[in-house]
Each structure stands twice: as C-alpha cells, then as structure tokens.
C-alpha cells in the first residue's frame, strides 16, 4: 500500500484489469441483491450490464502485464 501511494507509482494494465474485475464483480453482486430484494428492476439491469462489461474488459487486460495503464 505504501508503494501504491508513492510519488512515482503508476497503475499498470494488469492492476487496472484486476480493479475492473473486482468492481465488476461488486456491481454484479449489487445487481443480484437488488433483484432478490426488489425483483428485476432497471437499476439491477444497468448494474449487471456495467458489472459484466467491467469483468470482461478486466479479464482481457490481465495478460498485458506491467505496462502503464
């Protein structure tokens, strides 16, 4: 964490990919929870779409390694 907040740290493609996967998964969970609580609503559909897109793009970024994002 100290390194992440250093003067010269830059996020890499792999780290961006991992971040998008985590964010996407969280949005998918939110979509699932909203659907369970309130049925299929627009907010849940938008969350699921954004979450799914985030996970997919994140997965494709993982192989790009340490190149700066």
């Amino acid at each position, binding site marked *: 964490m100290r390194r992440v907040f*250093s003067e010269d740290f830059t996020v890499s493609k792999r780290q961006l990919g991992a971040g998008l996967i985590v964010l996407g998964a969280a949005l998918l969970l939110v979509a699932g929870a909203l659907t369970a609580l309130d049925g299929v609503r627009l907010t849940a559909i938008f969350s699921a779409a954004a979450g799914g897109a985030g996970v997919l793009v994140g997965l494709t970024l993982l192989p790009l390694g340490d190149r700066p994002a």
Partner: protein
Amino acid sequence: MAMGETASARHRSPWAVAGWLLTGLAFALLAGHLLIYVHYAVGLMRFPFDYDQGEGFELVDTILFSQGEWPYRSSETYPFYASNYPPLFHVILVPFAWAFGPAYWYGRLVSFVGTLLTAGTIGLIVWREGRHRGVAVLAGLAFLASNYVYHVGPLFRQHMTMVLFETLAVAVLAQAPSIRDTARRRRALAGGMALLLAAGYTKQHAVATCAAVFVFLFLRNPRRAAIWGAGFALVAGGLFLWIDWATGGAWWTNIIAANVNDYYLAQFTGLLRQWLRLHGALIAVAALFALYELYAARLSLYTIWWVMAVASTVLAGKWGAGDSYFATAIAATCVLSGLAAARALRGGAPAALKRAAGIVVPLVYVVYALSVVKMPTEGRFFGWLSDALGLESTHGSRYAFYDAAGWTQGYATIGHVPTQTDVNNGWRIVDRVRTAGGPVMSEEAAFSLLADKDVITNPTQLKNLYENGLYDPSALVEALRAHDFAAVIFRAQFYPPPVLDAVYEAYYPAEAIPMNGFSYEIWRPGPPAEQRGAFAASLAALLPGETRTVALALPFDSALAWRRHAMRLWEAAGGKPRPAGEGNECLASDFSQGERAISIEVCPAGAETLLALSRTR
C-alpha cells in the same frame, strides 16, 4: 493540399486528388452547418419570449441573483417559485441583468458563444496532441454541426456552459500529470480543478467528467489523485454546505432531492439509437481509438472522459431529460475521433496506411456532415436551398424546418426560427397579462417578466418536488380556488395534479393564442366558489322535469364559455346552442351523461348571467 499527402506527390497521385476533393467537401459541408447554426442563433436572440420550455425560469434565477437573492426557496409560499439548477450560469449573467433588465438575448448569446469556445477548445486539443491543423478545424466544426448541439446551443440554458467548462477542464488536466516542473504542474492541476468545480456548479450532470478526471489521475498516480481529490471534495463540499446553510436547506431539497425523477427506458434507448445513427461515423472512429489506447497504448484523459460521458447518457431516460444529455459525449467524441484522425495522418504509420487515411478521414467527416443535416425550409435562401435539395419540413405545418434526426421520445422538437407572427402573438399574450387585474400564474415566465409582474410558480419544479413527496400544494390550491390570480396561462400543463385540478375547478379557458407552434391557453377566473358550488349541487340534485336557476357573477359571453368548461365531463347533444327565452336573448344547449339529459339556458341579467338548468330525462 489533401490530408496525408506530401507537396511533391500532390499533382501525381489519384489518391491525392480524391483526398483533396473529399477534404474540400468536408470543410464545405461543415462550414454550411456552421452558417445554419449562426442563422438559428441570431433568430433566437431576436425572439423576446420563451423558445424552449423552462428558459424563462433560468432568466428568473438570473434576476434573483442580480437582486442578491437565492432562487432556492420554499415553493409552498407566494410566489411558489424555486429553482432546481446550480447557480454559476446565472451568476455569470448578472452583469447583463443589471445593464439590460430581464431579457433572453444575453443568456442565449452567452450560451452560444460558449459552444463556439467549446468547439475552439476541441480544435486546440486536437492540434496540441495531433499537430494537424485541418483535422483540428474539422473536429471543432463537427461539434457545432451536431443536431443536439444545434438544438440547445443558443438557448437560455446552462447545459452548454457546463460542457464548455468540462472541455476546458479536460484540456488543462489531460497533460497536467506529465508536467515535470512541480510548481507548473500544481498550477495546471489547480486551474483544471477550478474549471471542474465551475462545471459542477453550472449543472449537476458534470459529475461524469469529475469521475473521469479522478480515475485518470488515479491511474497516473494514486497519491496525487487522493490529495487533489480530497482538496476538491473539501472545496466543492464546503461550497455545497454553505449554500445549503444560507438557504435554510432549500438548496438540498431543490437541487438534489427533487431531481429523482421517473425513468423511461424507451426514452433512453430511443435517444441512444438516434445518437448512434447521427454521429455513428465519428463514434466508430472514437471507439477504435479508445480500444487502441486501452490495449496498445496508454489511456489518456480524453478516452476515459469519452467512456464516462457515454456512460452518463443513461441519465437521458429521466423525465425532463433529453438529447442535451448527450452533449458532453459529443464533445468527447469529437476530441477522440479528431485525435485518431490526426495520428493516422501524421503518425509513424506505413505510407500506404497514411495514404488510405488521406481518403478515409475526410470521408468520415463527409458522412457525418451528411448524417446531421438540418435547416429551415422557408425564407428566400433556405426555401430555395431546401427545394433544390428536395427537403421538406419534418414538422409538417407546425414549423418550417427539416431535421434528419427525425423524432424519438425526449428529442426536443425545436430548431426552427420563430416568425414575426410568433413575436406579435407573444406581445398579445403580454398585453393580456398587463391588463389582468392582478398577478398571473403563467407556465412560462416571459409574459409576467415583460408585463412587469411577479413570476408565479416554476411548474416543472413543483412537479418534481410533488412527485418526490417534498411539496404540499395546499397553499397554491387555496390561492387558485380563491381567484388570487387574475389569469392562468398554460402551454403544456406541467403542474402537479392537485394544482391542475384546482385550475380546472376555479378557472375556465377563455382564449387560445398560438405562438411558436404551441397553443397558449389563457384561463380566466370562473364564478366565485359559492356559485360554482351551487351550480354543481343543482346539477347533482336535479330531478326529471325539475328546473333550477343559478346566478353567476360573470358577463354573458364569459358565462357561456365557463358553462362549456363546467360541462366538460358531459356529452354535448343537439349541436350548436340555440336561441331561447323572450326575444331570443338567451342561448340553450343540451347535455347528456348516462341516463340523464339536461338543458341549460344561459340568459344575460345586467352584469350577471342566469343559468336555468332543466332535467329533461
């Protein structure tokens, strides 16, 4: 010289000739769009009334700020007015209000000039990053050619000033992290943050650009993003809390809580499809450039801005939103497609690819320019031009205006230049307000402002507040029932249902004046509450064969019009009113509802009118 061709090759290559012709065509078409835009803007600046719904209330906000008052206030007390927009655009206009009083031209001028500056900033970004003058100019012109920018650009509305501040902020911040000199970098970051703050305090929709900026800063250096993000949140939040404190909480209620509106998915998907169809040529290039940066290069602020701006268009499905919600996405698309075009033409690409780009780039702008065609279809020049091009008005007889966009839910049906008849009819409505003996509740502010009377209500804001459970309309309903307003002027009846019901009960439509494609209904006070009650009670209690008479404190013609309105839920029978009574001085009409049939005879009685109700079945 054609795009991508060297001087030595220009006379030999057929590619160069084709590229030259296409480039010339792209410039000519986009310059034509600019001329149409200027024609429209000048036409609107000369029109002294509301052109688009809600413009007048932005003028009222400006007037209130010029008098040192907040427009964020309770809507439950006279004049039942509050604003739902942040203050900066209106504050910028305050010197104009001091100098010229209430007028629409300066708000439209500032907004229009803002779009020109936005186009210039887009061009500057493309020039700075791509070093291609021709593409830089085309990218700026492409922004002004968009049907959506054309619509909202010269309106007295804050949206395009927000887009200007957003674009300026992106221009300043995109290169800030790369500045090596610490003092210069900090100055650039501080300047960019100030512009971002200005965008947010012009309109809330700038939140997408704020998110894009901080994602970009985070990717470049999380530490810097955290420090500047904390500073930004402190200033923006502090300002927010101060205004909320100064307005006794009305700021939060009107700006945030009241903005949770119904969402219409069909409105968003319709507008999205339309946006893709109109701007598809540029969007395809921008999307390819975004993928290139994501996988093969480094993400710039421009790409992140484009992604966030496109994502934020989902809000266009809200009630009251529309095509203007795509304006930031259009600015970002013009930047990104311009960068892609400039790099394809000047980068280190193979010669064959560059030569192809010399054709493809101008072709993209030609296709785009042909997709966004819109123009007036009457007048000496535009009438001739539209005839020559075979274009007819897409608005029928309502407006003489062709728009390739067609129509979808949420797309503003504007773009035409108002006529002298519209102006004359607007002044007729102002005369009605001037001669009315008291304040007038008008759905548009212009008539009251120009008649030097109080502006009563901001209808859409009352509706927003009411639908969020934040507005008790009982004081306004009581004022309407007591005829506190000398007239009510409707255009679209965007009031909360209880307010509309009170108008229907206590007023009647006395006159309709057409202006700018809409029918402005002037409703006058009906008879006093006890006489309305007596009429309703007689109507309900009347037995077959029985006749009852009710006196109305209205002159004969007004009583006739009121009776038509009062019987609106009954079916009119027997055609036109027939002469009746002694000397045929009365008029009788028949009405039926289910099994019941009633005849009403209207007779003059001095300053009053007598209504004789007879149940015939």
